[in-house]
Every structure is written in C-alpha cells, then in structure tokens.
C-alpha cells in the first residue's frame, strides 16, 4: 500500500468519524441522560428500616425518591451494581458505552450497552451488574455517606466521556460478617449507620469498641437521619427494646445498652455475657419491705419526715408519679426532690427513680450507654452515680417511697446475659 493511499484512507476515516460525531452531537443532548434506578448486588447485607423493622428492598436508588435505600457490604467484598438509564433524542445510536466512577477508586468498568427505543424519541439502556474495580479493604470498617457513582457515557467507543448523571446511596462496610439476628438484635439502618460512621477505618475489636463508644460519650446519639435518640425525654416512655428506641427515638435504659452492643455486633465483634441488668441486691428492711429502688444523681435530700423506719427516714408519696406532660415527678409529699443531675442521651434530666438499670459489660469495663460513662466495677456504680436507695409500699391508693442517702445501706446485684 502506498503512502498516499494510507493518507487518503486516514482522511476518509477522519471525515467519517467527524460526520458521525456531528450527527450525534446535533441530535443528542447529554443532559437528557438520567439514571432511573440502580441496584447493588454481589452479597450485600440486608438492612432493616428503623421505622417498622421491615427489610429494605431494591432498587437501592430511584430517580427522584425522597429517601434512597442504604447499602452494606462486609469488608473484603466487592460492590456490584447495575443501573437503568433513559434519555431522549431524535436519532439515537444502537449502542453506547457507559461507566461508573465511584469514590476512592471504586470504579465500574466501561460496558458497551444496547440502546432500546421505548417510544418515539425516548430511549433507555441498562448497565449490567458489574463489580467495582477494587474491593473494600479487608478487615476494616468503612463508611460513605453518600457513596456517589458518577455515570459517564461515550458515543465514540470510549474516546470521549461525558458525565450523564449520578446515583447516591449510604454505604456501610462492616469489618466482619455481622452476628446473626437474635432477640432484639436486628440489623437496623441506624445500627449500621452509627457503627460504621464511628468505626470508619478501624480494624481491631478494641479499636472498633472504642470508636463506637465515642458516639455515646457526649450524650448525643444520632440516628441515620441525624435525629437525636432520647433517653427519657419525656420521661413517660415505655419502649424497652432496640426497635422501640429506633422507631420512637425516646426510650428506657434497656434500649441504649442494646444499641451500643448492637453497634458492635454489627461489625462482627463477638463478646458474650455482655448485657447487665442491675438492681439492688435482695434485702429487706423496716417491716420486711424489699429494698428495690435507687435514685440516680441528682436528688436533694431535705428534712426527713418519715416515721417508723429510721434506716430509711426520707419519705415521698404519690399516686400518679409522672402525669402529663411527663417532664417532672409529681409527689404529694416529698422529702427528696429531683434535681438536674447526670444528663442522659439527648436529655438534660432523664428519669432517675428506678428498680433496675441496664448496661453493657465488655472486657471487664461497664459501659453505661444511657449516660455515656464507664465504670471499672459494679461496686463503683452506686457511689459514682446514685444519691440514694429506697423501698416503697402502697396504702389507701397512695404509694409511699422511703429513702436513705446512706450509700452503704445496700449494694447492687447484677444479672449478666448475652445480647
């Protein structure tokens, strides 16, 4: 072949390319390409809604949806995604190339896909399930909020790429397979969110436990929507399980201990005998009454007026302890009065008159997630966190509670189970 022939051939080819490009450039508007939906596959983990506890379905991303579906994987696995697109133009090609550019090099390779005509001038194409170019770092929790995939299209076999649209999902990567659901431990959205948000980049059990615990230490725990989760604010909540806390965002102490443990279990951290129910050790006092109440700081002990029981001289009485609006105790008589004391999660002055309380026990440390504080021993808890012990009896429809501020009067017992 002569040189001149080659030049002619290249010239013709160039003209043809320009012509083709000219046709599409004239008839096709890139901005009209929109991602309609995207679905992650390839072993992603199920996630339950906080609201109602049902599992999210697919697709994970839907154009125009107010809330997109979160996605979770175990570290070391590889995200896989497919997506549907549509566009409008007068004269569409038979096929185009599509690729996805994710964060931190999580890219989805270019694929040549067929263009389907849905209606005159309306077309669609489907990017088939494709693994990301890299896997999530093994043995490490990760967190993307959002995990944005920028979708590009090319009409000249990948020579030129133009951004078409993007999809955005919360992406949670757990260090290991989460522990199996059991009892109230379920794979709720906020469990993933709180856990991975705090454990992002951490690997060892100890690192993850410490990082997740950070969520609790400032007395502000936020769910996946960045809404506050309240501990007794207002005080009349009756929710005592994890689902109740996440759905209603105000609950009793059981739930915060469960939430803390859940946010560790979801990372695959295994600790048995981790859930502690504390209550006064069984003992009786004046008249054989069981000492079964305690007061969490702060309570002001005034002048004692109770008679007949010197060991528990302070007396309060009540019929309806927590009337509307459920912010303050309602005593008929009160030698002991509630003060703003130790703040709880998103709650300046939570309930503080209890029979029992729940905390977590991990590697010998007691974690009280309600207040974001830790204790080295069970014996320390009353001296550091309580103002008094008590018992109560009912007579004539009135409940009489008797108290002492002698913290040596009794002690705590613990019942340890595995959450």
């Amino acid at each position, binding site marked *: 072949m002569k040189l001149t022939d080659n030049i002619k051939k290249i010239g013709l080819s160039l003209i043809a390319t320009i012509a083709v490009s000219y046709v599409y450039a004239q008839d096709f508007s890139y901005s009209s390409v929109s991602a309609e939906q995207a679905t992650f596959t390839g072993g992603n983990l199920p996630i339950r809604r906080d609201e109602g506890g049902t599992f999210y379905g697919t697709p994970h991303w839907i154009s125009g949806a107010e809330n997109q579906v979160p996605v979770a994987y175990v570290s070391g696995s590889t995200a896989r995604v497919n997506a549907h697109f549509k566009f409008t133009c007068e004269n569409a090609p038979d096929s185009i190339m599509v690729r996805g550019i994710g964060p931190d090099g999580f890219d989805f390779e270019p694929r040549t896909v067929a263009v389907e005509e849905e209606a005159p001038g309306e077309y669609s194409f489907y990017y088939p399930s494709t693994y990301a170019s890299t896997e999530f770092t093994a043995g490490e929790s990760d967190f993307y909020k959002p995990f944005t995939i920028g979708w590009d299209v090319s009409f000249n076999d990948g020579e030129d790429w133009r951004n078409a649209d993007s999809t955005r999902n919360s992406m949670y990567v757990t260090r290991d397979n989460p522990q199996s659901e059991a009892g109230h431990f379920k794979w709720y959205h906020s469990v993933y969110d709180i856990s991975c948000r705090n454990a992002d980049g951490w690997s060892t059990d100890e690192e993850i436990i410490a990082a997740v615990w950070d969520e609790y230490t400032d007395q502000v725990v936020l769910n996946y929507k960045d809404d506050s989760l309240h501990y007794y604010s207002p005080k009349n909540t*009756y929710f005592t*399980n994890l689902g109740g806390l996440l759905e209603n965002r105000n609950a009793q102490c059981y739930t915060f201990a469960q939430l803390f443990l859940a946010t560790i279990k979801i990372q695959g951290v295994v600790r048995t005998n981790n859930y502690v129910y504390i209550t006064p050790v069984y003992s009786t006092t004046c008249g054989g009454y069981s000492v079964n109440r305690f007061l969490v700081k702060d309570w002001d002990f005034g002048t004692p007026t109770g008679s007949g029981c010197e060991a528990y001289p302070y007396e309060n009485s009540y019929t309806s302890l927590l009337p509307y609006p459920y912010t303050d105790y309602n005593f008929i008589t009160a030698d002991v009065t509630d003060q703003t004391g130790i703040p709880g999660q998103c709650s300046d002055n939570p309930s503080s008159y209890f*029979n*029992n309380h729940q905390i977590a026990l991990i590697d010998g440390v007691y974690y009280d997630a309600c207040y974001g504080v830790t204790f080295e021993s069970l014996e320390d808890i009353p001296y550091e966190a309580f103002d008094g012990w008590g018992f109560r009896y*009912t007579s004539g429809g009135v409940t009489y509670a008797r108290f002492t501020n002698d913290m040596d009067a009794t002690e705590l017992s613990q019942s340890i189970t595995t959450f």
Partner: protein
Amino acid sequence: MRFWILNSLLFCIGFTFGQAPERKIIIENGTYHYVTINDNNQLATYYRGATTSPIKEGKRYVLPVGRNLTAHFNPLAWDLKDDSIIAVNFMDHVMNDRYEAIKKIGLFDLQEWNSTMVIGELIQACVNQPQYIFNQPYLSLKEKTDIFNHFYFDLALIGDEVWMVMSNKGSFRIWKYADGEWKKSKIYKREWKAHFTLVKEGNKPILLTETGEKIVVSLDGVEIIQQGKNNFELKDYTVVIDRDNGKNYYIKNNFIIPEQSITELLKKSGSTI
C-alpha cells in the same frame, strides 16, 4: 403439591391471626383461655371464648403482665386457677421487680381491649400489680450466679400448689409452693437449647421439653416417661390442656385458624401428648 399448597395456605392464615398463644390453650367448662404477647410493647392479651365457637369470636382482654424478648426466648409463664390467672411478669421495665414477678389476676377484673386505651398506662398497671407470692426460685438462682444463659422457667398449678421449673447454664431445679412456703428439689444437670413447658397431667407436673420429651418432675426426682421426637421443636406448637376431658394435646401454631373453633382444630390437627 396439593398438600404443600394447603400447608402454605394454612400457614398464611395462621400467621395473619397474629401472635401465637403463649405456650398453651386451656379448656375448662367448655371455655377456652389463652394469652398472647405483643413483642413490641410486651403487653399480654387474654382471650376467652366457647370451645365450639370460632376462635375469632372470642373476647380479648388486657392482662396486666408481660414478658421480655431475649435471645434465649422464654414465653410467658402462666396458668389458670378458678377465676384467676397466675403469671410471672418478666416485662422489661425500669420499675418492674423480678423478685415480685409472680402475680395473681382475677379474670373478671380484666378490661376488654378498646381503642381508647393508652399503652403506657397499661404497662404502668403491669408494673404496679402486687406480687402474689415471692419469686424465691429466681432469688435462689440469682444468689448462685450472676450469669444467665439458657435461662428458662415455667409454672403450673396443681390444686393449691404452684410448681415451677427453672433452668440456667446447663441445669434445672424444681420448685413447689404450698402452705405458704417454697420447697425445692436438688439441681439436675441438663443442657437446654430452648424453652420447655410445664403442664399438669393426671395430678403430676410434667415437663415438656424442646424436643418433645415428657419428664415427670417432683421434689424427689425426675423420670423421663417419653423420649423426644424427630423433627419436633416445642416452639412450633401450642399445648392444649383439655381439663374437661383430662387430656393434653399438641397443635401446630400455624394450624390455629381463627375461623375454626378449638373443638374443630383439635379434631383436625390435635395430637395427644
């Protein structure tokens, strides 16, 4: 295939009926009695109706007790005596005292469920219920250990006696309350994988285990009188205690269909224990 479809249909119907009865249905004087628990708020509902009428026509009452839901699930421990229910209120609540958990509640004091009831107030009523007898079995166990693992318990009434069996960490013990005091058996070794149910058969307390074994229990000893069954899990069944005929049955939970009467269900699906 037809059998499979029928089973699936029955499962669906049974499931839509709501929560399964907690352990048992008791038939007495032509009336059935059973209890369900709402796992979200822990509240118990007591059902009563004629054994010959469809279950769905029975009345629903608020029963002021409840139970928690733990990984090692233990259904509500309850039994019927005359016009009262004796139950162990193991509801999770900051004011609920587990040592005072054994309650006696008059059936004719109960309120029918209605839409104006406030859940929080009903739960508070559960917590405020006075104890019937002290929960000595729990205290005794608590005094021996801080660790609770495969902790299960149930009670049954035999005459004026209250019998309880309580397990924890690979052992169990039998308790009897009579004449104002608790008496106990020695501790028996046994690994439990799931809850058991205690029933009266003849005039003896019988333990129905998670695998379908029948064990006669007393303060003096235990005797296995029937071995477990293949592919049997107690959690899938409700025990029907027919006091009118002196017989006990198993009926699979998903065969409990609200359109049918207890009598029909027993005839079609009950199997003698």
